């Protein structure tokens, strides 16, 4: 296989279960040009340098456009306006400074450590309820039984979505998940589904935002909707909406993958699972090593605004740049024995949450959710073992994670 076809192989679902040998070959050329003109960056040093290079833009991805419906009112007037609004009010993960910085700093202020820590009891309660529901079974599917529902509940709690409306969010999260998948080539049906879900959630959130402006409660949406200095809106309604949807979508599948990948890795290293059961204090270092070893997001795409020279390779202006975080996390020039799962390695500057400007806003929350879930799973699943290894994976190469993770158990404690 030639160098310029390696990334095509990464994209091939056949390689989803173990893309790491491909990553090792990609790392032989830290910056490698692909046939389609994009550049894949796969070493720790090169990615680090690019994350702090001001010439990389995140604004390249086209927003999902509404497909033709045959209804002239929609096709010629309403949808172009909606498309335009979606394009100018993209979520901040797809925006550059200065807009990105302004929106992100407002979110960061509301996404305080205190607010995240306050969610602990609610997360623990939900985790316990989800495990309770598995009582009497000889097999669970971690994805559908726990990893998938948990993050939506937590995000709803964080935003201030009434609990009664949570099932609707579970459905929207599923439909919108592919919207942040950078490698997605959507067909019309998928696009229709995404924009349909988006329009529905937009209508719902619009009402909720108005409600939070009228009667603020102690949650993130109320904080973001509250007037800023001088009584003006801190965020326009459209930006607030796209931010809320971003928090739901970006915080969902990533957390699903983190919890699932962590449990999968622990079941493959049963001695580590046993040590965690005996000592829950080990959870943070386990999670950190999972973020390096099996990260929830394998790569993100940017665009070069100018000609950039990195690791001896010149990336031309306008080229898409794929930052292959998961390959950098296994870079032997940065980590000792990178292919070994070793929670006790001290040196762990991973890209499991990305890095630089767009470093994951929800990192503290993701860590807490995964920590609570893993400790509970290690204590309450009796004699857990993998029913299928490797598990089947969802098609996404970037948001990479098992579609299901069947675990045989001798009951729950």
């Amino acid at each position, binding site marked *: 296989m030639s160098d310029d076809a390696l990334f095509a192989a990464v994209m091939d679902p056949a390689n989803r279960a173990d893309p790491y040998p491909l990553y090792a070959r990609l790392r032989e050329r830290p910056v490698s040009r692909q046939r389609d003109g994009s550049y894949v960056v796969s070493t720790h040093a090169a990615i680090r*340098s690019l994350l*702090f*290079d*001001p*010439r*990389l*833009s995140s604004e390249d991805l086209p927003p999902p456009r509404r497909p033709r419906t045959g209804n002239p009112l929609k096709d010629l007037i309403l949808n172009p306006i909606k498309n335009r609004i979606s394009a100018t009010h993209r979520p901040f993960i797809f925006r*550059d*400074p*200065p807009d990105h*910085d302004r929106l992100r700093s407002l979110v960061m202020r509301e996404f305080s450590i205190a607010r995240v820590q306050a969610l602990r009891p609610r997360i623990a309660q939900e985790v316990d309820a989800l495990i309770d529901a598995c009582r009497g079974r000889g097999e669970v599917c971690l994805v559908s039984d726990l990893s998938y529902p948990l993050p939506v509940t937590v995000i709803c709690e964080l935003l201030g979505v009434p609990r009664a409306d949570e099932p609707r969010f579970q459905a929207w999260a599923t439909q919108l998940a592919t919207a942040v998948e950078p490698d997605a080539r959507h067909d019309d049906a998928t696009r229709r589904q995404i924009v349909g879900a988006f329009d529905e959630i937009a209508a719902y959130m619009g009402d909720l935002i108005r409600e939070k402006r009228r009667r603020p409660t102690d949650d993130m949406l109320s904080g973001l909707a509250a007037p800023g200095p001088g009584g003006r809106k801190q965020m326009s309604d459209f930006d607030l909406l796209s931010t809320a949807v971003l928090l739901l979508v970006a915080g969902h599948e990533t957390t699903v993958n983190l919890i699932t990948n962590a449990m999968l890795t622990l079941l493959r290293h049963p001695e580590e699972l046993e040590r965690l059961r005996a000592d829950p204090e080990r959870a943070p270092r386990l999670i950190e090593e999972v973020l390096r070893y099996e990260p929830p997001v394998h790569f993100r795409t940017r665009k070069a*605004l*100018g000609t950039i020279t990195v690791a001896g390779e010149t990336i031309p*202006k306008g080229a898409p740049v794929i930052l292959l975080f998961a390959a950098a996390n296994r870079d032997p020039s940065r980590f000792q024995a990178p292919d070994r799962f070793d929670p006790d390695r001290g040196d762990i500057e991973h890209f499991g949450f990305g890095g*630089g*400007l767009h470093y994951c806003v929800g990192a503290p929350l993701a860590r807490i959710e995964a920590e609570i879930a893993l400790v509970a799973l290690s204590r309450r699943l009796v004699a857990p073992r993998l029913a299928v290894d490797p598990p089947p994976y969802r098609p996404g190469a970037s948001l990479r994670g098992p579609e299901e993770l069947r675990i045989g158990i001798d009951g729950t404690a």
Partner: protein
Amino acid sequence: MTPEPAGIVVVGASLAGLRGAEALRRGGYDGPLTLVGAEPYRPYDRPPLSKHVLAGELAADATRLPELTDLRARWRLGSPAVSLDRASRTLRLGDGSVLAYEALLITTGAEARPWPAETGGGLAGIFTLRGRDDAAALREALVARPRQVLIVGGGLIGCEAASCLRDLGLPVTLVDPNPAPLARGLGGFVGGVIAGCLRDSGAMFRPGTMVRAFEGDAAGHVARARLADGSTIETNLVIAALGATRATGWLRGAGLRADAGGVTCDAACRVLAADGTPCPDIYAAGDVARWPIALYGHRLIAVEHWGNAIEQAAHAARNLLAGPGDQRPYTHLPAFWSSQFGVNIKLVGLPEGADSVAVVQGSRASRRFLAVYGRAGRSIAAVSFDQARWLPAYAEAITAGAPFPPINDATDRPRIETSAPGFPSLRTAPAHPAAETVHV
């Protein structure tokens, strides 16, 4: 009486001295190690003094630096070195004692330039801000809520103090001979942004003039300042932020190239004797050391920055332990940071001598921007206001000698226009004589 074994003596027990001593131990040096400090304190950190300590968020004595290595050192604190005799390899301390050395690491740093006695320097209520005791005394005076504070000098210390005092709600006037604060360090083009911050903070900024003299009341306390433009300012607390002179007085007569601008070193941090040959047993690092920086045409420059103190001390220690055939040149891109008026300012490189400056990201109006300095078509420095994230990319370009501007297609790119950086000529600032780059 048997003399104590001599070993290595580190003169100056501040950041550079401590980190240098640690590097000696880490580098395998196992012999006697002595640290000499003028102040009675173990090494402490200075950056918080003009910020958190003045603000009352941190006590002056809570700034002690962590000691990262088991130093097994003799501490000679509270008595400065007063003279050096290279022939007998001894130095004399203020308390009259004599220390022998086999090798010397000079890290005596710099001293705040005091207000001259003949124009009111002896009055009560006039402060400088350099050491722990200065900060503690100033903090105590601030707690008494002075009626009107006058800060003389709009350099980093003057501006940080102004920012801090405005946060405390104290009335502040800042006088500087240049048209903008930070003009000597960053030029008026960038300094103008801080002038705006100063005014927005409610401080009174008096550019383009200087204090001629201070006058006291009957009790000998400062009461007013007489300015060069003939006006007077009532004040009962003055901060003289006039820059620093290098602490080299004790080297007078030692036959070394040393003056108020520093001790001159070669690229390997070895101190030069009067005849220009490097002393194989005397090294210097930190604020006190000026050395030829290759990136800036081998100009002799002393860099008064925190990061340089650490890096240079470690480098000097490494060379001190290495053989004469293994002396490595010290390569360092100067860098500093400052927090004032809610803005994080960072600089890489030396803007001095720039002939042009351009904002390449953000805008001065938003006070979030990145500006690059150029000289003869080459990029020589970059400064960020709340945009420090991108600075490493510019630092890399500057180190590589990239053309000016090195990056002009970044995100948040304005229309790029080149301006004059606005450095004052030295003639317009006679009250603040240039401390650095004094060639011997």
